[in-house]
């Protein structure tokens, strides 16, 4: 059985301007030791999905309206806040996008690491401190012991992210969720962080969910990839399959592998490239959500009337589209490896 199974998760935000359907029927699973990459643009719902798993969505406006998140046999959406607090940090850990703001500026790095350890494993102050120093070494921060007493502002962005990672693995979680861990960092630092994550994952036997908008990151690091758009998963396959044989028009566009326009299907008011905006999530389109920006969508087609289901077009490869690549007229098997 998979470590984490998300089934038809729906998270909505109830605001004055309307109900925002941020996550609208998302299902996937993650196995121990594997990495799932979730890719999508801003507003696709990937971060909200991650926060929903952890139960960290802001409770006044947001709510998980339906679906289940089963971790290690227990449905997290049904647990009390107290139980969730026990799981967070020790069984499932999360690191966030912006390392500059994710650490408390008025507490030392040491405190922020040891408090997690002491909370979940009840170590004494000295034991926790030793462990903290070890962790900093594990994430390759030099002079670990002295740096424990430093405040976050003395660390660079890349180092802070390493600290975040150290905190995340401090209690040996079974699952690590990384929400855009490299987005706010310089390109030169990115690779180091990704390598570190990979290293730690194999060493600690963790499963990982890697959320990003960058296909390049996912190509490196993920075993499976789920592509999200407008609150739904539109394609889900192994990393290799996604890159070698993408099916969904959106995925293709993300990969920059737009096939030549089929003359019979071109309509000139359609956007021909990714520019344009995702649909209004307060009133999402009742049919295919990508139709407005899709090159292959047709007026008389099911695209605007029937919402496409997520179906298995090949073993292990799911897609939510009426016009996946392998079913298009004149499709050529020429999309090569990237």
């Amino acid at each position, binding site marked *: 059985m998979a470590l984490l199974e998300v089934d038809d998760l729906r998270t909505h935000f109830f605001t004055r301007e309307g109900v925002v359907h941020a996550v609208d029927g998302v299902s996937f699973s993650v196995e121990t030791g594997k990495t799932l990459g979730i890719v999508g643009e801003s507003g696709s719902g990937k971060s909200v999905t991650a926060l929903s798993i952890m139960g960290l969505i802001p409770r006044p406006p947001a709510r998980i309206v339906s679906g289940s998140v089963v971790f290690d046999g227990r449905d997290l959406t049904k647990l009390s806040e107290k139980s969730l*607090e026990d799981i*967070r*940090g020790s069984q499932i850990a999360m690191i966030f996008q912006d390392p500059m703001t*994710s650490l408390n500026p008025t507490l030392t790095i040491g405190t922020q690491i040891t408090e997690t350890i002491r909370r979940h494993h009840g170590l004494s102050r000295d034991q926790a401190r030793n462990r903290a120093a070890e962790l900093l070494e594990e994430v390759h921060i030099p002079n670990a012991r002295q740096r424990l007493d430093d405040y976050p502002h003395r660390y660079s962005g890349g180092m802070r992210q390493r600290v975040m990672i150290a905190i995340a693995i401090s209690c040996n979680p079974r699952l690590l969720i990384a929400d855009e861990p490299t987005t706010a960092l310089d390109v030169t630092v990115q690779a180091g962080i990704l390598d570190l994550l990979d290293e730690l994952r194999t060493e600690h036997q963790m499963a990982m969910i890697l959320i990003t908008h960058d296909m390049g990151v996912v190509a490196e690091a993920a075993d499976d990839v789920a592509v999200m758009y407008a609150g739904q998963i539109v394609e889900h396959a192994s990393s290799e399959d996604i890159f070698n044989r993408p099916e969904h028009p959106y995925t293709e566009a993300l990969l920059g592998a737009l096939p030549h326009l089929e003359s019979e299907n071109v309509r000139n008011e359609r956007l021909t490239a990714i520019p344009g905006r995702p649909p209004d999530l307060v009133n999402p389109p009742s049919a295919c959500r990508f139709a407005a920006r899709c090159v292959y969508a047709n007026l008389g087609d099911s695209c605007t009337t029937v919402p496409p289901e997520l179906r298995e077009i090949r073993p292990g490869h799911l897609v939510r589209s009426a016009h996946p690549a392998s079913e298009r007229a004149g499709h050529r098997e020429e999309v090569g490896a990237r």
Partner: protein
Amino acid sequence: MAKFVIRRVFWTIPVILLVILMTFGMMKAIKGNPFRNTERNIPAAIQHNLNREFHLDKPWYIQYAYYVKGVFTWNLGPSMLQRNQTVNDIVSETFPVSAELGGLAMLFAVIIGIPLGIIAALRQNSAFDYGAMAFSNIGFAVPSFLTSTLFLYFFALKWGNFTGFPTFGWSGFHSKVLPAIALGLAPMTYFARLVRGTMLETLQQDYIRTAKAKGLRWRRVVGLHVLRNSLIPAVTAAAPLLGYLVTGSFVIERIFAIPGIGQYYVTSVSSRDYSVTMGITVLLSILIIVANLLVDILYGFLDPRTRDLRT
């Protein structure tokens, strides 16, 4: 850090000197003022005293220099109207009273205001929150002379037998409660709103989300992570509030008939006892400047980011 403190302290000195100069200048500009050396309607004996004490026969800058020396050696000169008293005497009698009143008011403001703000923030948009904020708004808008009068009317006059609050005077615990609360009401609302605001802002911060993601108990998240960041601005608010306390005390002391420095100030102005006026003004100014200094230094210690910046 020490360098910062020294530099800051060093700069206060010219500020104080300048303030004394300004006060001195203003005093000289007031008509009918023996300082101006043009009026002759003061008993000769006092005039003689004044000349001696304040060197009124010398040019103004000499007068100023002597006065500054007087300030720093704690000699503010004689009262112009009361022959046996010096300004020092008057100040030593009245200042402790006002200081106590101010202190109690501040205590009330902090003890009630800060928890109020904290709870309001944690229960945002609840009935408690709306109630607390409505109460704050009223407390801050209604002039203190009205609240004092109402307190006096209800708690001291009407229900005085029950509560034991007297209607005037300043001796014993009971007489201090009402004035302290009346004076502390506005600062209390200020703290409540400030703390609520900073807490709400802090609660939105990414690092709070991180703390929750670490599985820390909510009690700890609030008690340590949130509060530590939220209360620092409240500290810095203390200094300007001192100015308010000074201002407010004028009215409160009048209504509750408390023999404090505010009362004396007004009396001295209307009775033209200018050395007292000047002495009190200078004293209050120095007080405010020093308070600002202390708060600045305290803030430097509290926020680790500025701590490092200053070294």
